[in-house]
């Protein structure tokens, strides 16, 4: 940045103070504005509902309200994800003083009926509103366990606000975390994050406070240090980050800025998948608004804190979710990982100290600053604090985006929140962690969802993908599918992943075709263990997980496909040769 004179800095600080006041006023103005509305219609326009036609539903609401002359009494809000994606497009009608009503599978025609049968009578007549059976059928109870068992921190504003309205974000407590942080010393902010017990939500579970402390200790290089937000959600079948960025971009930006203040970072980068146009568009808008209202820039809110942020698009490479590969991609190169150490907090983006945090992690930071570390650490288990967002999909009735306290059991997720299998057939297993995770069989429904327990069972938290499978799904097939994915996505830099993955896949195909033997299963385990220990990055280290965990829990399914499946197992070898690789780093 250009050096400024003391006088110029003072001027900027004065401007910053005014901008802060203006922001607070913006929130007040918003509250004043919505006071006059007698009702609100919240319509979900996140990716899933949008794909289902939510945009034309919104138009239908607006048009029919205008036709009845109620447009100034009813606020139509285009919101972020409401969660129950399988029932989309969703719309929630909130009449002042009455219980909210949620409608599913809303079409433009239905929207007109909602206005004429529900909204108009509610505002123009006294007493009970009687809607037709046509509408009644599409009502979704808000008392479903899907809604009541959730605890929302990250998703609290999604589905309840207009993500493009900065005033609404401020009115809901937005940027207060940042304002509070800026009145403290950076070490005090670090302390709060450490005390909260917040851990990385991208899968690894590394304590966020510790990571930030490492960055804080690294000196500036050429006057720079960076924050990166990892929005390269590559797990196929998971879309948490997409919705958080699309419905709460300001919250993610705020989290990053609090981190930057605590660590002394000078600028930040959002790395977002190009496949998420809505997330990109909303983040671009958030940055534009933040620049315009003095949230980003120099002498923010009249302090000495300067920060800028920019966006970089991913380009379809799963490996770029790995932090060293991601940095390489932000630099505009091929996304190949490199060995650690040096850790990114020492030598990261453009060889300068960098902290990389997941989207959901950052979205937790603002609320922690506002409410305090104890408020956060009260939720969850002994070692996994707070909540976790999951995208529960596959063969489950209530497929969608949910946020639950850490420690919620698999059974509660699948049976209560998920409402059981969509087919009505017996539940078989759930896969967490996507292609890097493993299966949790029906026998483990009591297992609490937290970092340690999931690791113990041979899966991982991952970023929050959760695929439910019923008895019709072949575990061998699903393991082969995931392995095929990681083999496709292997960057090819290190041999264990490039060659090991490929060979393993050939053996898996052989088994799936009914031509495999027990010797092939042993070989797969051997290769898998070698990959786990010797691969350069997380992609290769975790690629064997789906295969190894299905072999562990669904051995019978593999045996049924093997030529010699009925014969007794060979005695287990004490130490597989490949395990002798020295893993000291």
């Amino acid at each position, binding site marked *: 940045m250009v050096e400024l004179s003391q006088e110029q800095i003072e001027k900027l600080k004065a401007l910053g103070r005014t901008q802060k006041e203006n922001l607070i006023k913006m929130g007040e103005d918003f509250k004043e504005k919505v006071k006059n509305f007698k009702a609100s219609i919240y319509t979900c326009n996140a*990716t*899933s509902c949008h794909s*289902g036609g939510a945009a034309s539903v919104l138009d239908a609401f607006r048009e029919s309200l205008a036709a009845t002359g109620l447009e100034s009494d009813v606020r139509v809000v285009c919101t972020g994800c409401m969660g129950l994606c399988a029932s989309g497009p969703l719309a929630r009608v909130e009449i002042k003083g009455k219980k909210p009503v949620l409608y599913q599978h809303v079409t433009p025609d239905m929207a007109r009926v909602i206005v004429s049968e529900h909204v108009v009578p509610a505002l123009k007549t006294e007493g009970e509103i009687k809607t037709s059976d046509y509408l009644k059928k599409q009502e979704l109870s808000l008392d479903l366990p899907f809604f009541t068992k959730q605890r929302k921190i990250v998703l609290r504003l999604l589905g309840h606000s207009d993500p493009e309205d900065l005033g609404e974000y401020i009115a809901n407590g937005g940027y207060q975390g940042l304002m509070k942080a800026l009145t403290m010393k950076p070490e005090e902010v670090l302390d709060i994050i450490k005390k909260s017990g917040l851990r990385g939500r991208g899968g690894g579970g590394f304590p966020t406070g510790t990571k930030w402390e490492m960055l804080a200790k690294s000196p500036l290089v050429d006057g720079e240090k960076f924050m990166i937000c990892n929005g390269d959600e590559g797990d*196929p079948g*998971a879309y948490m980050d997409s919705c958080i960025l699309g419905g709460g971009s300001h919250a993610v930006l705020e989290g990053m800025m609090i981190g930057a203040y605590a660590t002394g970072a000078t600028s930040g980068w959002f790395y977002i998948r190009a*496949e998420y146009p809505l997330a990109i568009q909303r983040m671009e808008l958030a940055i534009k608004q933040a620049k315009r209202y003095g949230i980003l820039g120099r002498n923010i809110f009249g302090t000495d804190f300067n920060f800028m942020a920019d966006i970089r698009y991913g380009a379809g490479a799963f490996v770029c979710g790995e932090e060293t590969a991601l940095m390489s991609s932000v630099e505009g190169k*091929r996304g190949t990982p490199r060995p650690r150490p040096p850790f990114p907090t020492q030598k990261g983006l453009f060889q300068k100290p960098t902290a990389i945090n997941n989207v959901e992690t950052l979205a937790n930071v603002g609320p922690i600053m506002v409410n305090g570390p104890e408020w956060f650490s009260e939720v969850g288990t002994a070692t996994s604090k707070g909540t976790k967002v999951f995208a529960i*999909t596959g063969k489950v009735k209530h497929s969608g985006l949910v946020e639950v306290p850490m420690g919620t059991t698999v059974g509660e997720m699948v049976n209560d929140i998920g409402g059981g299998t969509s087919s009505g057939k017996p539940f078989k297993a759930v896969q967490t962690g996507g292609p890097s995770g493993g299966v949790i069989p029906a026998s483990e429904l009591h297992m609490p969802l937290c970092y340690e327990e999931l690791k113990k069972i041979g899966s991982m938290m991952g970023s929050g993908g959760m695929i439910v499978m019923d008895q019709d799904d072949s575990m061998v097939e699903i393991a082969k599918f995931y392995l095929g994915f990681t083999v496709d996505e292997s960057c090819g830099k290190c041999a264990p992943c490039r060659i090991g993955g490929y060979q393993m896949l050939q053996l898996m195909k052989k088994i799936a075709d009914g031509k495999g033997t027990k010797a092939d299963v042993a070989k797969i385990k051997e290769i898998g263990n070698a990959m786990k220990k010797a691969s350069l990055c997380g992609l290769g280290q975790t690629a064997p997980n789906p295969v190894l965990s299905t072999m562990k829990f669904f051995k019978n399914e593999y045996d049924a496909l093997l030529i010699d499946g009925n014969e007794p197992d060979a005695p287990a070898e004490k130490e597989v040769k490949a395990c002798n690789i020295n893993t000291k780093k």
Partner: protein
Amino acid sequence: MADDKVKIQEDTRKMLVKWKTKRGSLIMALHEIQGAFGYVPWDSMEVVAEELKIPMAQIYSVLTFYNHFKLTAPGKVVISICDGTACHIKGGQSVIEAFEKELGVPAGTTTEDGLFYIQIVRCLGCCGLAPVVVVNGKTYGRVTPLDAPKIVAEWRETMAKEGA
């Protein structure tokens, strides 16, 4: 063709103005080029090399590393079929096969008439609608193999109307 080359290179040069001064902007520049042309033409690459002072070999290595970038022009109608996990277990594979059969070309290729291009994608973020197919930005949810001929026919008609 010579005129095309001049036009492409001129357009590319204009797009690069804002990226020239920013570090690490190669991928962003390539995104913008593909956004404009539907793929990254060789003629553009030459200009990128010149303007951003990056060797052609490096540009090519980046383009071929990432799935998103295309080196040849795709068909006018791009059919993206999701094979993410949620779509896969709900029958995504059979949907892919149905489209391949309907159009007579394997995924990743363009039909001979240059009209349709089939690509397999990994998760479009609307798993609630699985299996999902997106055609030129229009989303079809809960697609079955039987829908493939209907969707193709719909787009044939649309394109015929537009005089393509």
